[in-house]
Every structure is written in C-alpha cells, then in structure tokens.
C-alpha cells in the first residue's frame, strides 16, 4: 500500500498546478471583462471573410 504516498502526492501536485494556473489567469486579467471577448470572437470571422472576398475581386 505504499503506493498511497505516490498517488496522493501526485494528486496534490496536479491540484496545486491547476491552482497556480488559476491564480495566474486571474492576475492576467482574464476575468475582468467577460463580455467583450464573446462579441469580438464573432467579428474576427467576419473580417477574415471580407478580406478574402476583396482579394478575389482583385
């Protein structure tokens, strides 16, 4: 049953890694504006298709 040391050790380390990732994402401001990116995502598509059309015309 010594494997318990390893399994618990690994699970705690994995949990801590995720925790660090979360803290980093908060620090970088990911959660400060949760609305605009959802709209921006849709616009990006539109611009790309527009550029393509322009190139085709030329």
């Amino acid at each position, binding site marked *: *049953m010594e494997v318990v040391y390893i399994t618990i050790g690994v699970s705690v380390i994995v949990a801590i890694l995720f*925790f660090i990732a979360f803290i980093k994402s*908060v*620090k970088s401001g990911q959660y400060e504006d949760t*609305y*605009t990116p959802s*709209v921006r995502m849709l616009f990006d598509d539109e611009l790309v298709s*527009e550029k393509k059309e322009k190139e085709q015309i030329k």
Partner: protein
Amino acid sequence: MSLNSCYHCGADCGKKPIVFNEKNFCCNGCKTVYEILNVNELNCYYDLQATPGTIPTEIKGKYNYLENEDIIEKLLEFSDGETSVVEFYIPSIHCSSCIWVLENLNKLNGGIATSMVNFPKKTLRVTFKNNETNLKQLVELITSIGYEPYISLEDADTKKNKVDKKLIYQVSIAAFAFGNIMLLSFPEYFAVQEFWLNRYKPMFRWLMFVMSIPVVFYSAKDYFISAYKGIKHKILNIDVPIALGISVLFLRSSIEIILNIGSGFFDSLTGLIFFLLLGKLFQQKTYNFLSFERDYKSYFPIAVTIIIDGIEKNIPVKDIEKGNRLLIRNEELIPVDGILINGNAAIDYSFVTGESIPVIKKSGDKLFAGGKQTAGAIEMEVINTMSQSYLTQLWSNDVFNKKNEITIKNITDSISKYFTIAILTIAFFAGIFWYYYNPSMVFNVVTAVLIIACPCALALSAPFAIGNMLRIFGYKKFYLKNAETIENISKITTIIFDKTGTITSNDKTKINYEGDKLSLVEVSAIKSVLRASNHPLSRLLYKYIKEETLDKELTNFEEVLGSGINATINNINIKLGSANFVGEKSLKTNETAIYITINGKFKGCFTFKNSYRKGMKEVFETLSKTYKLIILSGDNEGEKRYLEKLLPKNTQFEFNQKPENKLEYIKSLQEKGEKVMMVGDGLNDAGALAQSNVGIAISEDVNVFSPACDAILDAKLFNKLPKFLILSVQTISVIKVSFVISFFYNIVGMYFALTGQLEPVVAAILMPLSSISIVVFVTIITNWISRKL
C-alpha cells in the same frame, strides 16, 4: 427602416434629407461617417444593426487642448516616445456594433496599432504610434464617428487604482484547501478501524495541517486584523467571535494531531473560512460603469482657451488666474466665476440646479462656474480661480474630507456584542462545571463551545441578504454604492427632496397660455417671429406652437438682448418679451413668462413651468405615512402655492437655499437625532448628498454624470422610490429572522459541545448545513419579497 429616417443614426431627416449613395442622411455628420466607413470597407457595420450611430456633436476646436504637452502626459497611460497607450471612458458604447467599429479604428487611421473595448466598463484602450498620429487626432476621430470620450479633470489628476484582487485570491486558496482537506478527512470519518488506514493516518493529518496554514494565515487574516481593531476601539464586532473561533479551531486541531489524540477539525476550519469569504465576495457588488465618488472635477473641462493679446492659447483649468480672458465656445462649460465681456450668453445651469431653461446674460453680468454656454462663443473675464468659485467652494467643506471610520455599526455587529459576551460566559461556566465533574474534559468542552459558537451562519445572513438585494435593485436600475446603504435606508426618518431636476423633470417644460384668446393668424404670426430668434425661450415656444408659420416676410425685426423681440409680419405688429419690454405690469412674479402685445394691444402671456415627474403625488402620499418630508430648493417661492396644493399637508417647504444652506440644514436635523435621506440631482446638492445619511442622486442618464452619493436612481423610476425603501426595510427584517434560525443551530451545536460529544464529524456536518441553509433561506425570501418590483 422608414423612407425618411437617416441611414446612419435613425433620426428623422426632415423635409430635405441629404442623399448620398441613394441613402438618406439627416446631417452631414452622418453622411461623413457613412463615407468613412464606406471608403474603408467597413460596410457591414450597417448589417450588424440598423442605424447604429449616435449623433456627433460639433467638435471643431473643442479638443485643441490635447496639444498641450502637460495634459497629454497626464492622460497617457504609457508612452515610450514611439508608441503610447491611452484609455478613454466612452459613455455612448451600448451595443455590439460599437465594439466592432471601435476595435477597427486602425482601418480609419493607420497610426493606430490596436484598440480594445471593455464593454462592461465602457472603456476603450488605444495603442498608437506617436510619429503617425497624435492624441488630438485620435479623439477627433472617435468623436466624429459618434463616440465622444469623456475626458475630465479627474482622469488627469488621479491615475486609476488597480482593482483589488486580494479577496479573490483569499477565496480561491480557501476553496482549494477546503476541497482537498474534506477529501483527506473522509477516510477517518467513515472507516477509522481499518488496519491500513491507521498506518497512513499521520500522513493524511499532516497534509491537512499544511494545507490549512495558508488559509488561516492568509485567507483569514482580515478577520484577525478587524477583530484586533475592534477590540482596540472597545467594540465587540462580529469578527471578534469569528477570529476567536478560527484560532481555537486551529490550535485545538494542531494539538490533537501533534499529540495524536484525534484528527482535528481542519475541514470545518477551512470550510468556515471559505463560506465567510464567499459571503464577503457576494456582498461586493460593483457597477463598473458607474462612479459614486465623482466631484466637480469629473464634470469640469480639463482645459480652456484663454486669449492673450488676441492670441488663443489652451491652458489647463487649474492654471486659470484672476483677470484672464477666457473664450467659451458653444456647448462648453464655464469653469470659473467671471464677468461676461461680449457675446450672446445663454447659460444652461441644468447640471448645477436642475433648471432646464437657459439663463440669458448681458455683457457685464456675472457668470457662475458650472453653467454650459448654449448660444455661440462668448468671452469672459475671470474673477475667481477655480477653487474659489461660488460652486466649487462647497467642496472645501469638511464633509468631503471625512474618511470612513471604523465605528460604523451594522446590524450584525450590533448583535455580536451580546453574542460574544454570551458565548464567553457559557464557555466559562461550562469549564467550571466540567472541572469539578471530570477535569480531563475541561479543555475539550471549552474549546468545543468556542468552536461551535463561531457565528458562521450569523455572519453570512446579512451579506447574502443584502448582496442579493443589491443585485435585484441594480437590475431594476437603482444602483447602490455598497451594502451599508441598504441598512442606512432602513433607518431613515426624514426624506428631503430637491425641487428642480429632482421632482421636476429636466427635459419637458410645460407651457401655458393665459390671456385673451389669440386668433389662428395671430398664433401663426407669433410663430413666424419666433423662428427668427435664437433665444432659448423662443425656441421652446416655437416648438410648442403647432400651427404653421405664415408665408410672409418679416419686416422691422428687432431683437433686444435679454428683453424681447419687436417685428412686423403681414401688417401685424408683434411685440413679445419680458413684461418691462412690452410695457405691461408683470402678472406673475417669480415665473418665467413671455408677454405678448399685438398691434399695441396687450394680449396675454405664455408661462413656462417645469413639469413634475410622473407619479410624484403618489410617491409623496405613500412616503408621508412613514417619513417626514421636506422640500429643500434653491429656487424662489414661485411654485410654493401649487406644490402645497399638490403634496400632502405635512410636507415642509424651504426655498431660496444656497448649496451651503442645504448642507447646514441637514446637519441641524441630524443633530436633532433625525436620520436624513437626501434626494437630489445637481452639483448644488452635492454637499447635502454628502452630509445626509443616505444621498440618492436622481439621474436622467446614469452614464453621464451624478454628484458623489450613496445611490443612483434612474429618473424614470422615481415613482418606484417608496417600493425601494420598503424593500430595504424588509431586507433588514429578513436578516433578523435568519439570525433567529442561526441561533437555533447554535443551540443544537451547543448541546453537543456542553456534553462533551463534539466529534469532528458532527462539526463537519452541522457547520456547512447551517451556513448553506441560511444562504438558501435569505436568497429565496429576498427574491420573493421583491418579485413585484
């Protein structure tokens, strides 16, 4: 879209629309924007939303001050000489196409590297290259496409303080530790006797101990600090029993695992801190796009044009000196007191007093800071610097400098005093009893009492009840500054209303005609004469008269500034203006009126009255049952009689109150023990709003401007004010009920503690159960009482 509405902004194009590309435009501004967008292939702007633009304002010369190096330096967030970053607050951001246009600015101006919108905050952050464009061009560009940024002195003076994320870190650490510790403690709860478990028990216990350390010393540190401060000020606030509970929990758990006598209460400890912090987080509702701290600085312009020897120069407002000659353009604010030198001054003081009809001034008249010029450019000479001006002097009063003191007592703290004394007494007597009965149990029982009495549920009921109410109010457009405001509202005894702009509406003005009946031709003639005049009252009356104008030419047109007009049309001589001007005795004192004589014969007068807000009568009737009502106005007594008739009998009236008088009036009421709520709107109420226990600013457009206050109410919802007040009182009752429930949980827990039976598993069940049930209870009840809002 109807045929006659503007393709860009949707406004009515009138009889002669500007046609471009087979599309109708109401003005050249809209056409230009369309052209810009069209040229730059940004046409799908119009696919996203029909008529997305807002009307651009006249901007020429307005932003010249952005060439001043000092101002640029203050506004820029970052600059390394080549690239600069600037952030604007743009109130008119309101839909998805706003984001789209503003984020594609680099197509309109190549010098712009990136632009990024934060929609909830209504801000735009632009990165641009200094050698290709500059701040002025940038601002003019975004203004010309209809997104005028809000640049104020406040932005220049204070760099924005970063959002405090400490609480989020504290909660996340507590959540992390709570989850893991709960898993680690389960084996011992359910299968203590198993052989292999006994072997690994020490590892589980020490892991729990290690994880709880950051929770106690980082996540919970504010409770210790607050408890220490409270005791220092001789106040037993709610954080005292919490801090006591946390330390006892931690110490007893540590001792148990060090001496190997038990598993400790680490899961309860971290769970307790997690729930408490969650309550704190929930209560912290902030409205990113609103500011409750604005003073005159955020309303005043950042720079002004001065004239030295005939040369115009832009200087920051704070550098204005006595004797300077200022040029105030149309739609610009007067930043300091001064004397009008030349030009047509029609000053709109609506932000100061709420009065919507502009005041006409003649050269030599005194102009007060805070007014907005509405009729072309004027020149004025400065007689007071900004900090000494009539209006801004108000801010030197002490109320604006008071800091939040620690002595603020909320409902939870007022009960915790008795609570703390009670649990300490119980713990003391339980200790004495067990000392004689079974001395080995004393430590166990005393610590168990302190642990179980830790007022988690008690401390959670107020944050969740009030936090939920804040959200409901915010959803209904009644924005509160913080949680204390709800408690303060529930204690109010007197409500004071400002008159103009608060109980009267800003935009609509009621016009009445009194006198001999006018014939149709005469009315049309009057309208034709009014068309030629730029006076604000003339324009109001012109809009009010529905008849068509006469198709004849005006002869002998003569306008005497500040007095009236004399003109002849179709052989009808019309003289209209002040009573003096038409040679009549004034019929109405203290009222705005236009007197009319036709062919030398006096006919009557048009009076201008502010229209009162919808439902005002009902609001006052409902409120007068519970509160003492006072109207405190800076105006003259002109409408006193009318108001007395309209409003409940016990309403008091105070007229001719200067801004400082209002502040002093509230102070004197407070000294008599009244809890005062001030409802106001303009800058002249700012002192009163700050002095009162609860200051509510009524705002026609919550994004634009409101003086510093505790709450902002959308003007359209004025008739719901009584409902909001009742709900605040009810919220406090809900909290009191939930206190009773949490006492019940404490009594149950106390039974286990006093009999020495408090096992970790009992605490682990009782503690979350009480907290969660309280949270669910207050959330459901607060939603239920506000369902009819």
